[in-house]
């Protein structure tokens, strides 16, 4: 008897429980996103809450919606993260690698200060009072872009300008959004010519404010009229592909070096480091 009663009890419990589950499975099921179920399959189902969501289901829903990162489940660890990525195809296929590039060379030595800035040390905040440089288009130098970069791909150089580590940059565009002066843009990594200025000021004013400003002299336009134009006192590359490589030396005659080859810039960065 001592042996039988527990066996019977346990079997009965198991039986009842499974009946309950079958019932629940059949009658109480609610329609839901099949992807959520797929994710649920992969997740550990511990419902421990370690992910910060209220259980695996909500976490799964968040992943499917794209609110939660695939590696957000500390219990599952890397295995689960990889499976999730595989299942949901979260990794977007990159066709052309794009990287962030900074359109300003208003270094601390080149760009003139306007006043003594006193206040919150972020670009956006200083932008609100006009910025502490005379050029009202250039980099403010407080590194909002550095702050937001999730990949540690942008850092503040010694010259007070942000520099991009193009190998680390994923082209997510966070820095582009963060810059209140819109001087960061995403470019095809292969494009090797860049205009390092955004100033729409007239030549003399721009020149007064920053030694490296585009003064709209038109030398580059003359070198390559089909690819470069002047617009609002600023040179603009309209058709990058139409720049023949042999014209580059002519373009580089720019008196303020506001347009030039990116690799030279990169080499300078490495020297900086």
């Amino acid at each position, binding site marked *: 008897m001592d042996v039988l009663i527990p066996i019977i009890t346990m079997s009965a419990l198991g039986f009842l429980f499974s009946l309950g589950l079958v019932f629940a499975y059949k009658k109480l099921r609610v329609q839901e996103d099949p992807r959520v179920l797929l994710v649920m399959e992969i997740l550990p189902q511990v419902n421990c809450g370690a992910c910060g969501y209220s259980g695996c289901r909500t976490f799964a829903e968040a992943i499917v919606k794209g609110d939660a990162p695939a590696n957000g489940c500390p219990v599952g660890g890397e295995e689960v993260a990889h499976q999730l990525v595989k299942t949901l195809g979260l990794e977007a296929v990159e066709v052309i690698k794009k990287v962030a590039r900074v359109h300003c060379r208003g270094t601390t030595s080149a760009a003139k200060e306007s006043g003594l800035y006193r206040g919150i040390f972020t670009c956006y905040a*200083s932008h*609100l009072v006009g910025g502490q440089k005379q050029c009202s288009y250039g980099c403010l130098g407080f590194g909002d872009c550095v702050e937001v970069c999730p990949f540690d791909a942008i850092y503040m150089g010694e010259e007070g300008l942000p520099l991009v580590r193009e190998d680390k940059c994923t082209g997510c565009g966070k820095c582009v959004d963060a810059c209140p002066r819109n001087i960061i843009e995403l470019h095809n990594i292969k494009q090797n010519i860049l205009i390092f200025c955004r100033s729409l000021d007239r030549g003399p004013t721009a020149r007064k404010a920053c030694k490296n400003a585009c003064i709209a002299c038109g030398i580059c336009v003359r070198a390559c009229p089909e690819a470069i134009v002047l617009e609002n006192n600023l040179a603009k590359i309209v058709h990058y592909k139409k720049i023949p490589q042999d014209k580059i030396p002519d373009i580089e005659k720019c008196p303020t070096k506001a347009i030039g080859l990116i690799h030279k810039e990169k080499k300078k960065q490495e020297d900086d480091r």
Partner: protein
Amino acid sequence: MMPNNLFILQSSPHFKDKDSVPKIMYAVIISLMPAVLASLYFFRFKALFLYLACVITALITEALFLLLRKKSLDSLSDGSAIITGLLLAMTLPPSLPVEHAVIGAVMAIAIGKQVFGGLGQNIFNPALVGRAFLQTAFPVAMTTWIPPITQKINTATFATPLGNLKFQDAVAQGTLSPLKDLFFGNIGGCLGETSALALLVGACYLFYKRAIDWRIPVGIICSLMVFTGMFWLINPNKYASPLFHVLAGGLIIGAFFMATDMVTSPVTPLGTTIYALGIGVLVGTIRLFGGFPEGVMYSILLMNTAVPLLNQFTRPRILGERRKK
């Protein structure tokens, strides 16, 4: 234009009041001085050593954390660490071994303040965290009292007025300390809490410097008096009078100097009022029904935990806002 001649660029407003954080902090320190002097008078060198140990340790701990977090050591001069050290020492029994006081001061600054990010960010009153730590770590040492020098008795152990009330049934026995002694400080107890007079003198200075919110001490004292008064009216032979409760133990120092800590009290007027009333009621509850004779420290810490919620749910009405009913 010469670069050194540049105008300042800043966001409005361009006017600022003269008051500053260090000024407020030093006002608090000055206001504590009467009570410190009173305790030096009552407990002599024991008090001096404890004050020195706590303040110096607090400063050193603060400095270590600042170095660790690679922050400027300038913050040491804002006076907040000195206040923590002083307040902690003032809540310790005079006979406490100095090494215990040192541990308390380390804990007060470390887990009471710096782990939250330093000045202004802590949830709990650092001095009280230090004291609560000591109370729990060294319960015996923290509840052993010596009589003040002015009471020329020589017993190894000695009870505080509240201890008498709790464990000796002092009301029925008629051995309750006279209110006069409570007022001047001629009783056993923590260093800084004994002399109500000295504390009140300091508090007046704080009011003058507008460094504390009047709602907090008033709220605490009123709610405690109402709470204990109710029981006193029901049975004056069992319960002590409300005035006794206000003057005894750490209530005055708690209400004027601890609960009013700006960092750990609510910022909204309504929240502040609820906070103060809550402390008073909790003090009464713990003193009358709890296991400890004194409940000021626990009450303030408990209400500290509720401060974020109070702030959250007592947002003032914005001009023009129509609240849903």
